[in-house]
């Protein structure tokens, strides 16, 4: 099965696993949101740098739910459509904290490595 890719090469693909982190953060900051809302928020923040199939938000949501990091309940959206609202759980907050630290550490290391490599040229 081949995944559909857009020809737009300037947009970066979302790194494996980072979507989960972004969704957790989004839910932590914004409070309960439905899938569409999450997609909009990420789109807005990433300023169209990230290329995202919005459907993958749902696989990510399912994964987070299965780990017990978020929970969901049905409600009505702003335009009165029936929608499932997701909110972060206590375990999810803990996970977010850990993952954020982890991310920052790795990002720092990678940044240093890239700088150093660049310097040697």
């Amino acid at each position, binding site marked *: 099965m081949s*995944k*559909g890719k857009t020809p737009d090469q300037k947009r970066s693909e979302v790194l494996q696993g980072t979507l989960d982190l972004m969704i957790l953060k989004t839910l932590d900051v914004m409070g309960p949101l439905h899938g569409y809302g999450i997609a909009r928020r990420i789109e807005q923040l990433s300023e169209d740098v990230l290329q995202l199939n*919005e*459907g993958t938000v*749902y*696989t990510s949501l399912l*994964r987070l739910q*299965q*780990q017990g990091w978020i929970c969901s309940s049905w409600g009505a959206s702003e*335009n009165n459509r029936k929608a499932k609202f997701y909110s972060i759980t206590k375990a999810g907050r803990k996970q977010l904290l850990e993952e954020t630290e982890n991310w920052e550490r790795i990002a720092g290391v990678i940044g240093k490595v890239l700088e150093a490599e660049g310097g040697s040229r």
Partner: protein
Amino acid sequence: MRAVWRGLKEQFSRLRGSVARRGFDCEFDEEVEAHLASLTERFVRRGLSPEEARYAARKEFGGVTQITNELRERSRFRPLETLLQDSGYVLRQMRKSPLFAIASILTLALGIGANTAIFTLMDQLILRLLPIKDPQQVVELVAKGDYYGDNMGLNAISYTMYQTIRDHNQAFSFVTCRRSVQLTAMFPSQSDVLSGEIVSGNYFSLLGIKAAAGRVFDSKDDLRPNANPVAVLSYEYWKTRFAGDARIIGRKLLVNNYPLTIIGVAQPGFIGLEPGLPAQLFVPVMTTPALLPHLDFSQMFDPRLRWLNVYGRLKPGKTIESAQAALQPLFHQILQAEVLQPGFEHATAYQKEHFLRMWLGVIPGGQGNSILRRQYEKPLWVLMGVTGFVLLIACANLASLLAARAAVRQKEIAVRLAIGSSRARIIQQLITESVLLAVIGGAAGLALATVLVQSLLAFLPENTTGYSISSSPDLRILCFALGISLLTGLLFGLIPALQGARPNIAETLKAQAASVTGGAAQINFRKLLVVAQIAISLLLLIGASLFIRSLANLHAVNPGFEARQLVQFDVDIGSAGYDLQRGHVFYTELERRLEQLPGVEAAGNASNAVLADSDWESVIKVAGHENKPGENVLAYVNRVSPGYFKTLGIHLFSGRTFRASDTADSPKVVVVSESFARHYFGREPAIGHFMGRGFDPTTPTDMEIIGVVNDIDYQNLRDKDARQVYLCAPQGLELYATVYLNVKGNPRSVLASARRLAHEMEPKAPVTNMKTVEHQLEESLVIERMIASLSTAFTVLAVALALLGLYSVMAYMVTQRAREIGIRVALGALFGNVVWLVMREVIVLVAVGIAVAVPLALGLARSIQSELYGISSSDPKSIGAATILLAGIAMLAGFLPARRAASADPLKVLRYE
């Protein structure tokens, strides 16, 4: 570790998802729909036409179908999904060929049921731990080696040794002692014969047993002899005898004519430490002298008398091995001290040396002390082996059937493989079928097992019903049945599944449906199974014939007395408060009046019943006989009344038997058996010699041998305990007796009148164990009879299954070769030629099976030698007869398809082809 946890969490969540699947699927669709609608609206607001907007939304979202599919996929527990799917498929298949399903489920039910039934018995008689606190920490102490002194019972230890170990060991947090005794509780109108347990004060605290009412003993109840006459009831006895009345606590209970105060009731389910004799009444060790006149003060504290079982609770961190090692120095200190005591002043250097070489064994005690367990352990393992073999044969049959079915299904499987199904998926499906069959068969087997256990219990004699074996399955039995079913399913399903999932796709698809054959691999596999079945059935057949002949040998044994005309019953006059003098008068009068009953020819009594595994042995000292070091100087002893020899029909060789004139005041006299006389006096006459009883060399030899009688089987029919000494009833100290009646005609006819007479003479003396001696003899053979009949029944089942297997494989081969045979017949082959063509195969299979089985049988039979009597485990006659029998019926099973093939009309066969 964390990843594993996450994985588990996810699978669990999926499992939940699977269960609530319908709702989930809809939710995904709704959610995605809503998202798409919102996106579309957004694009419409940006100015796209609805058509374009919808398209853009779908593009933005990504593959809608893929995502929803992926969501569905991820939300489910795959193994469960496929399992349900496969099970549905299998059930549909079963409905299509119900005969196959019924046959296999029945076969499995028999195999699994037999195994579960035997396991139920094993579990309850042998494996189960007692309902006490942390039973695996409880150990029993056993003194091993050559003891110097008297011993009463299995694994017994003296009270003084118990005290020293209790006070000075480092290995145990508690040490306690106990002994099973028979007690009589007397009520105004009747007496109850009770199974009692003499226990030390710390007994209940060691075992962690609480009181259901009142309190249980503590160490203050067991300080000085006869100072605290108290008793604790078992919960069961409290409920049945006193209707669970709490007011009973504090009341007096007259036990063996001695008043005890009931202080409490033990917690429900607790029956003491001898599961074969569930205790109804617990009494402190220190009440022993009052309750049991034959164990007075001097004897109970005599280091030379071993009469108690000693148990300890291991301290945390201690193991059986470390405790055993830690106890040896203490044990040897005790031995060293004992050897210097007066009890040893007449012991020989040889005896002392051997006494000091003893050591203290520590064995698991969580199952309590059980003679029954020792008796049944080996036979039950043998039966477990037999039923295991039966199940293997059943597995072979099913494997063979499944292989044949897989061959028939090859076309279907080839098609599925060709259109992209994975081989693993097909194997999984085939195994699901076998496991499902096995589980259904197992459930039926479990039901069958309850019935089987009930009929097995009928084998056990009445005196073992104390074990209260329950036939209804508990969790352990359920687990066993489920486990064995799953294992069985895998065992018979795996190879056919592997074979079935590997067809040559191109060849199979090309071929005509009708001519798809199983191929050589399938046939060879089935032949291999037939060989295995023949071999296993032969093993079982040889085993069964050995057991049957062993039982026949035991039945043919002449016990040395006339068992057929005898009735026996026990009368315990001591518990009615009689002393020796009055007791003797009672028994003499009872015998006199019994002899006047119509039909009774003679009456006599003995302190110990015959064929009941009584183990009254005594060291014998014969005047003028020098004991050689290591010489066996033990003889079996019984105390009998003058009428005993005539009643049992024991033959007098020389001298005389006892008379009424042999009384407590007249010179002491004994009668000895032939083997005894031969051992000590050879060809010289034994009459007139003197002997005494006791290991002490100063033992007076004041008993005159007045008669020599024939040897009898005293303990049981198996053991030749021929050296016997009879003491004269009035010259000793027994207040209980087994009364024997020799009856003309049917011995059962006097049972009621004898009981009435005994009760009339003394209503307080309980009459128990009334039965014919023939019945007692049968009871003494219960284990042998159980093994012989069960192994025969299981063997018949096994042979029938094996023959069915042979028949079906041969029948299948004949159908496969119908065309070839048809051509042969058309070309002039005779009936005999065709039969030979088929029988040749049968003979090879049977011969290979026999060739495998006979050496195996010789090896395996050695392990059952101890269960056989009067026959060698490699008895050529039994092996030969079993082999010929099996070969004969196997030939017959093979001949049926051969004859059908030979008598088929070749024209019809060829035209059909």
